[in-house]
C-alpha cells in the first residue's frame, strides 16, 4: 500500500486542484463585489497551476513548471490591468457591486 510508505498519490493533488477550481467558479457566480469576483479568477488560475505542477511531477517534465512560471507572470500583469480597470469603473459609477454596473445590459 502506498499509504504505509507515506507517499501521496498524484490523483489526490489533481482532486484538490479540481475542488479549488470548482470553488473558484462558485465564487465567480455568487460574489457580487467586483474585487472578490476577480479574486475568484485568481483562485481558478492557482488551481490550474497546481495541476500543471502535478503533471510535471508525473511526467518528469520541467516544462510544466516553466509553464506555471509564465502563468504567474501573465497573472501578475492581468492583476495590475484588471485592478486599474476596477478603479476606473469605481470612479465612473461610484460602486463596486456587479449588479449596478449594467451599462451594457440589454
Amino acid at each position: 500500500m502506498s499509504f504505509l510508505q507515506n507517499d501521496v498519490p498524484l490523483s489526490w493533488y489533481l482532486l484538490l486542484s479540481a475542488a479549488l477550481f470548482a470553488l473558484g467558479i462558485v465564487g465567480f457566480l455568487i460574489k457580487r463585489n467586483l474585487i472578490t469576483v476577480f479574486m475568484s479568477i485568481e483562485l481558478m488560475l492557482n488551481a490550474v497551476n497546481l495541476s500543471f505542477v502535478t503533471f510535471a511531477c508525473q511526467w518528469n517534465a520541467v516544462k510544466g513548471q516553466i509553464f506555471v512560471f509564465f502563468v504567474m507572470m501573465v497573472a501578475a500583469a492581468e492583476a495590475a490591468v484588471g485592478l486599474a480597470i476596477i478603479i476606473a469603473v469605481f470612479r465612473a459609477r461610484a460602486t463596486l457591486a456587479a449588479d449596478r454596473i449594467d451599462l451594457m445590459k440589454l
Partner: protein
Amino acid sequence: MHLILFVVFAGFCLAGAINLLLQSHPINSAVSLIVVMTSLAVLYLLLGAEFLAAAQIIVYAGAVMVLFTFVVMLLNAGREERTLGGRAALPIGFPAVVAILAVLATVILRAQGLGVAHLGQGLTNAPDKSNLVVLSQVLFHELLLPFEVTSVLILIAILGAVALARRDGDERTAAK
C-alpha cells in the same frame, strides 16, 4: 510525513477557499486567498518544485495580493449585499459547477498510470541537479524568446495600468 503535510495544507487550501466564499467583506476574502496561495506554495514544495514555491510566495502571496488589499483599502470597499448570483446562476450555474466537478473527479479517479509523489524526489531525470538548475537550463536556452516577450508584456501592462487608473483631470493639466 508527506501524507500529514499534504492533508494539513490541502485542508488549509480548501478551508481558505471556502472562507473566501463565505466572507462578505473583501478584505477578509483577500486574507483567505493569501492563506490558499501560501498553502499551495507548500504543496509545490512537496511536489519538488522549489523555485515555483518561492515564486508563488513572492509573486502571488506577496505582490498580487498586496495589490488587491491596496485596492480594497483605496476604494474603501464595504460589505457586499448578497443576492446569491444573477437569475441564471441558481438554475444553470450551480448544476453546471457540480457537473464540471463530477466530470473532473471521474476522469482523475479513473485515469490509469498516475504515479505517487515521493517526498524530496522532484524530477528524477536529473537527480543530482537541483530543480532550479534544470528549470533555468530549459528557460534560458530553449524558451528564451517567450521569456523576453513576457517582459514586454509586463511593460505594456504597467503602462496600461497607469493609463487606466489616471484621472482625466491630471491629463488635462499635463496637456497644458
